[in-house]
């Protein structure tokens, strides 16, 4: 059994961590937080130069042709560094959707530009409160034109193209849902910034007014394609979360060792020790579950849906706990803008909702457990 990353993959991790620790400190993260830029272009360019954006894109489309395990490695480091870049939108979602459902022409048109860092992608899915369902999709795609409003699109303001989930046929069920590539530089597209709990990641409300759309796969297959890619992306977001959880745990541990109260490091009080132990436990369970997700992702195993949901539930709980407790360990300092605790508190709450709420993934986990047991 080798339920771990390979030595080469660990080298990739070291390399990515080194790069991010040099170029993506919390100074850079805060520049985006404070509105100086909408994302960090230097980090984005550096990731492209290192081949990390196209790490899983086949070589024929300009990528590195590595596998999904390498993506997991990069994801963990981006989460750890709180990287303010549109990686998840572009790589986990847009790129994966193109690779799964795109025609050769579509792949040729977009994948090389993604890999080189020249095209940022986004997924335009959400149309209101609650986790999306086929029924919630009202934005219409008719005669090659998209019309309607997506209420929250991650990276919507900075993306070059979006994959829009839209209704290509009448009705309110899955059969009418399709995916459409929209060049966001074209006519009929407008984006309005939406501030979220974590302003280090761009979000926008996007309105399409007869914007030109290129169908990605057949209408009616859109929801199934989306579901499959969301499962894959869930594993990758879980890696971002465990990266963040580990960092928040380290911050809490370091502060507990340094900070004195009553003549002792606060980390010598059981209340703090045990809070940190609980964070460690949650982070460890989440890491192990993420690894199982990575295995399922990399082998495209039948267990992917269950493994992804399991990883997401575990990672969401772990990162929220670690970020929250890290803030508490920091006491009054954790309540200041100056300390970095709130960066993880923000990110943990943002990622908890990405690709669907905790409740959504809990239900998906149970559904998949039942399917497996019924089989």
């Amino acid at each position: 059994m080798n339920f771990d990353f390979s030595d080469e993959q660990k080298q990739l991790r070291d390399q990515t961590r080194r790069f991010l620790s040099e170029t993506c400190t919390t100074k850079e993260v805060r520049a985006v937080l404070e509105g100086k830029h909408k994302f960090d272009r230097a980090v984005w360019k550096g990731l492209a130069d290192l081949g990390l954006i196209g790490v899983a894109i086949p070589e024929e489309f300009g990528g590195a042709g590595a596998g999904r395990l390498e993506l997991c490695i990069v994801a963990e480091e981006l989460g750890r560094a709180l990287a303010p870049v549109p990686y998840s939108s572009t790589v986990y979602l847009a790129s994966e959707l193109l690779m799964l459902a795109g025609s050769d022409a579509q792949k040729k048109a977009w994948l090389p530009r993604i890999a080189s860092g020249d095209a940022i992608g986004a997924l335009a899915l959400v149309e209101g409160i609650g986790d999306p369902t086929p029924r919630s999709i009202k934005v219409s795609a008719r005669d090659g034109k998209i019309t309607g409003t997506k209420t929250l699109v991650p990276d919507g303001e900075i993306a070059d193209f979006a994959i829009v989930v839209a209704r290509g046929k009448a009705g309110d069920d899955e059969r009418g849902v399709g995916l459409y590539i929209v060049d966001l530089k074209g006519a009929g597209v407008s984006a309005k910034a939406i501030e979220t709990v974590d302003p280090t990641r761009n979000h926008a409300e996007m309105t399409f007014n007869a914007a030109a759309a290129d169908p990605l796969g057949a209408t009616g297959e859109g929801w199934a394609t989306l579901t499959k890619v969301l499962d894959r992306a869930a594993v990758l977001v879980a890696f971002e979360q465990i990266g963040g959880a580990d960092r928040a745990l380290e911050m809490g541990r370091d502060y507990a060792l340094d900070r004195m109260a009553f003549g002792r490091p606060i980390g010598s009080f059981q209340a703090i020790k045990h809070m940190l132990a609980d964070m460690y436990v949650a982070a460890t369970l989440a890491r192990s579950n993420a690894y199982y997700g990575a295995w399922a992702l990399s082998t495209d195993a039948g267990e992917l849906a269950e493994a992804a949901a399991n990883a997401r539930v575990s990672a969401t709980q772990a990162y929220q706990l670690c970020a929250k407790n890290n803030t508490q360990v920091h006491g009054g300092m954790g309540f200041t803008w100056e300390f970095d605790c709130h960066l993880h508190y923000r990110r943990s709450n943002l990622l908890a909702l990405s690709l669907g709420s905790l409740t959504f993934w809990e239900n998906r986990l149970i559904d998949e457990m039942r399917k497996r047991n019924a089989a």
Partner: protein
Amino acid sequence: MNFDDTPQEAEYRAHARKWVKDNAPDDLMQEFAAAEEIRDRDARTAQIVRVAKIWQKRKADGGWACLSWPREYGGRGATPIQRVIWDQEEGVYGALSGPFAIGQGMCGPTVMAYATEEQKRRYLPPLASGEEVWCQMFSEPAGGSDLAGLRTRAERDGDDWIINGQKIWTTGAHFCDYGILITRSDPNVAKHKGLTMFFLDMKSPGVEVRPIKQASGHSGFNEVYFTNVRIPDSQRLGKVNDGWNVSLTTLMNERFSIGARLATGVPEFFEFASQTKLADGSLAIDDKAVRSKLATWAARSNGLKYTAYRAISALSRGERPGPENSIGKLVAAPMTQDIAMYALDLQGQMGAISRDDATPAGKLYQTLFHAIGMRIAGGTDEVMRNIIAERVLGLPGDIRVDKDVPFNKIPTRGR
């Protein structure tokens, strides 16, 4: 067992109710609410303080300011239960007096206990009437839960003391006229034994107030820096090096706030769940998972409410409520955080939006950050559990390695 007033209480309540009705500051409430929309901190503060002073002066003229204080200091010598009745009748208008809460609740009692008669007659009436505003300067970057670990120095210089150092989390310092200040006057003795308390004019040369930017991005608190600030010895409260005992008077009054309504998030979540549809089209409050969580939260929130009623009943019998009332914040603060996170989750990705009028749980979004401070201010969750364990249950105190160690010999870095 009943919720009824005694005849005397009922009479008092009728009196208070009539006065509030006759003097209802609905116009001020509008200005107060409007101030929330002002983005510039100084302008916002100025409007809030202006409105607060109008209401407070009106109350003082009517005899309702600091009503449990003696008449000669601006009060009317009311009993604790009369104070509770007044608070109930003042109701939502009580929020207007927010800027005076710390000065009247903590500084006033300390001045009353330790200042000279002349000082009391000079300072307490304008504090009660809101004409002068006070703040409390205890916390320091290095002295949070361990308040006595503070480092702001006070050095004797003839009839004066020279103050150097820094305070943090000072509510209202930017609009206050006076403040009470605890300092280290002798670093060569054990940490509790070398502290001295003063009050000072916040306009004194060398006092600099800077806003603290909080995790949420807002600025409700201040840092206060002291550079060679001169305080006359006559403004000392209590004996030299007895500041720790003086501070206990102040802090005892901090915790003695019966029935103060703590935000629990439960009414907001109930309203949210009653109005919000989940992905499957059902109302959130019909969802079993939501119901189970809400039931637990509601029962805890109700428990706080009826615990306050029990304390009020004890006051009504003339008893003084004990430290068991410190459970309020410990229950409410982590619960509001949990509620906020869950409310965001139920909205899916849209839950992340931070504009509080943009989503049904917008108000709960603010709680996400508010809860961080609530779990720390006035004692962290962990300190509150220690207080309950030690003062209510009689369990031993934590082992004190810095006991009897001269302050300047206590290590300041953990590694």
